[in-house]
Structures are given as structure tokens and as C-alpha cells.
């Protein structure tokens, strides 16, 4: 019977630590930082500052990766910080 060796780089606390890190980063970035004024968002409104600005490319890219990798999801949401919505 073959037993598979598993890398020691993975720990069972990974997800918990990840969630804690996300929560901490969110609180820090939203609560502790000075509010950015609309007049200061010129750079953020630029198309190159949008996450996933090219929708067709993003979906095709995710399609390719899903076929070659066992993981999925976590690719984020499109948009940016110009406050345009």
C-alpha cells in the first residue's frame, strides 16, 4: 500500500490565519487610514488602476487555469476605487 508524503509547508491553521489577516488588513485600511477625498482619486480613476478591467480576458484566463489547476475561485471582483458606481 502506498502512502503519499505531504509537504510540511501546509498547516491546519492556514485558513484561520488567512481570514484573520484579511480582517485585520480590512480594518486597518478602512478604519485607520485618512479618508481619500474625491479630488484625490484622479489616479484611481485611470483604467489601469481597475482590478479585472478586461472582463473577457479575465474569464478566458480563469477558464485556462481551471483546466490546468485543481484550485478555483478567489480571483476577486472587477472594479476600482474611483467611486464611480
Amino acid at each position, binding site marked *: 500500500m502506498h502512502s503519499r508524503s505531504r509537504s510540511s509547508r501546509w498547516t491546519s491553521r492556514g*485558513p484561520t490565519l488567512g481570514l484573520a489577516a484579511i480582517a485585520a488588513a480590512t480594518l486597518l485600511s478602512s478604519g485607520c487610514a485618512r479618508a481619500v477625498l474625491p479630488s484625490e*482619486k484622479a489616479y484611481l480613476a485611470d483604467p489601469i488602476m481597475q*482590478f479585472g*478591467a478586461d472582463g473577457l480576458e479575465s474569464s478566458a484566463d480563469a477558464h485556462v487555469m481551471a483546466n490546468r489547476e485543481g484550485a478555483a475561485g*478567489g480571483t476577486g471582483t472587477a472594479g476600482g476605487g474611483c467611486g464611480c*458606481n
Partner: protein
Amino acid sequence: MQLDARTTSPRRRGRARSWLRSAALLGPLATLCGPTPAQGDDQVRAAVTYFAEPAPNTGLNVVHPQVNYSQDFGEHFGLGVGYDADVVSGATPQVFGVDAVTAATKFDDVRHNGTLGLRFLTEFATLRVGGGFAGESDYRSGTVNAGITTDLFNRNSQLALDYTHNFDRVCDANNAVAEELLELRALDSSDRCFEKGSDLTATRKLAIDSMQLTWTQVATPWLLLQFGATGQVLRGFQANPYRQVLLGERAVQEHMPEVRNRLALFARGKFALKPIRGAIELDVRGYLDSWSMRALTTELAWDQYIARPIVLRVRARWHLQDSALFYRDGNDYASSGPVGSFWTGDRELSALLNSTYGVKASYIIRARGKQFLRFIDAFVVSAKADMLFYRSLTENPEFSPNYDRTKGLLDAVVVQAQAGFDF
């Protein structure tokens, strides 16, 4: 689906099944993670992507056309319509665990997918509902989705929550007479799939629930952050019905657990390089699931204005993953059999390192004052190329699935051309 006469088996797929089915599994995630045009983003886009994974006898080629239309009607209503397809051809081993080259089978197939989405924009939030349907000879997938996005803290924060449910139907061989798992037969042909009264095939169900929570934060006038989590639960038939695994001296249909719970956590940052009119982006994703698979993905990208209408982007991406609990290489399955009651020949479930390096150029022509053709605000064209490298991290890579495709220096290539306009 048309098959070459290389083997006597009439209609059999492996890798194509994997490629096409990945689209169905990805569907809910693509819906969640796909772009949601902001108010005023009235646009039409069309793209063609070509994927090639060369190999002497088991290569794979995919042509992926896409077209999207999005428009807002008034201040409170938006509509999005999309279509894409996969035109797949290549060759794949019949049985995982035997010589892939001499046992390769040629195939080709086409999958069509259509989506419809509605947006309702209010003072406090944007609501989204939508659905879609994808069909091919042996797989049908229906999708419904809903989501909400709201801006907070003087529009410096944005919270988005999305949910998708998939109603999928998978064609399988009729294994009603099998008394034990080792008697499971693989599907030979898609000819009788979804045919009422057929005693050769059976229709299996797969339900997929996906949810994503995303927080986007303006940190400074030059820094944008995004954090979130994606959860997914799959219940139903998840194996490749065509694939066989050699267990001892017997080739048996792939058999996988019917429940899979997945979780991905991600963080992204985008920093404006003000002096040189560029931006850099760093994405990190951690992933784990109930099949004991864990993965870490990192991507680094740099967007740079070369001249005002031209944007050049270079990127690098690395994906490292462990193998699923029940994965074995072909030699282990053949010599020792499986551990437990599950076995697979799916490369995506093995330990691996994928690397991607790419470049993209975009050209945007904006109307100055007077619109083009009286209604077009801007034309957009782009072209990109990615080089993909695969490295098996299993103990015996030569016995890993699709090893024949990984012998070259370049594992795979993706080329995409896109055009569209805003109005």
C-alpha cells in the same frame, strides 16, 4: 464530436471532457468573479482566444470565441448579454496508467454557453441577477446568480456579495448492473447521451453552490486594496465518465467523491506609479478543499502607458498545489491499486507547479468632442500572449497524467485578440 480512426473505440474523450467540463465547474465562479461593468460602461467586446498544449501524440488545441454586450437603460436599469464557445480538438490517452502514446485517441467537440444579466442601480446599492445555459453533447449546465454591491465610507470602500447555483446534468455510462466499484465501465460514446429510454447511458446530477464576499478599499490616492473569500460546495457526479484508471490489470472508470467543499481566500493590491504613468498589481490566493488539496497562487503584473493610447502589461503568475488525498501516479495504481474507494487520472488533482509569463498590448482611441459614427465614445483593441510552464511535483513525474505534453521546454501557449467599443 468526431473521432479519428486511430483506435477502434468509437467515441471517447478524456482531456476534452476535462476542458469542457472545467468551464461548467468554473461557470459559477466566473459569474462571481467576472467583471460587472460600472454604471455608464455601455460597451460591446469580442475576443478570440487560442490555447495550444503541444505534444507529439496527445496535444490539445482550443479556440474560445467570446462576445459581450452591456448597456444601461436610464439611471436604474442595466442589461448584459454574453456568448462564448469552446472548440476543442486533440488526443488523449484512453487509460491512465498505460502507455499514453500508443493508446491515444483523437477527439473534437464544441461547447456553447449563453448568459443574461440584469442590473438594478439604486441610491445605496447595485443589485444583480442573471442566469445562463451551457450545452454540449454530454454535459448540460444551467446557472442562476444574484449579487449586491454597495459603496461605504464616502465611496472609499466597496462591499460585494455574490451567490450562484448550478443545475448540471452529466452523461455517464449506465452502470446499474455493476455490483462493485471495480466493475464500473467508462462511457464509450456521447451518441446516446440524454436520450430517453437509452440503456447505454445514464444522466447524473451535479449541484454547485458558490458564494463570494469581497471588500475593496481605497487606502491612499495611489493604493487600492481588495480582500475576500470564495466558498463553493459541489454535490454530485464529478468524475470524467470517459476516463479509465488501470487498477492492477483491470481498467476501471474513474471514481471520485460526490461532495467537494472548496474555500479560497485572496488579497490584491494595486499601486499607481505616478511619475512614470504606470501601475503594479500583486495578487495572492490561498486555497483548500475537502479533498485535502491545498494551493497557493501569486501573480505580479505591471501596466505601463507607452504612449497615451497604448498600454503595455507584463505579468508573471505562479501556482503551487498539493495533490488530492486519493491521487496516485499511474504506476502506483497499476502495481498497488488505490487507497480507499476513489481513483483518478486527473492531472489537476496532482501536486504541481504552474508558471505563466505573459505580455499584453492595448490600444484605446477616444473620441475628442465629436463621437465616432455619432454614438461611439471609444474603440479598444488588444492582443496578448502567455507562455505556460508545468512542472509535476509528484515523486514519479513520468507516471503523472499527460506527461507526454510536458516534455518540451514550453508547456502551453495562450494567444488572445480582442476588439470592441464603448458607447
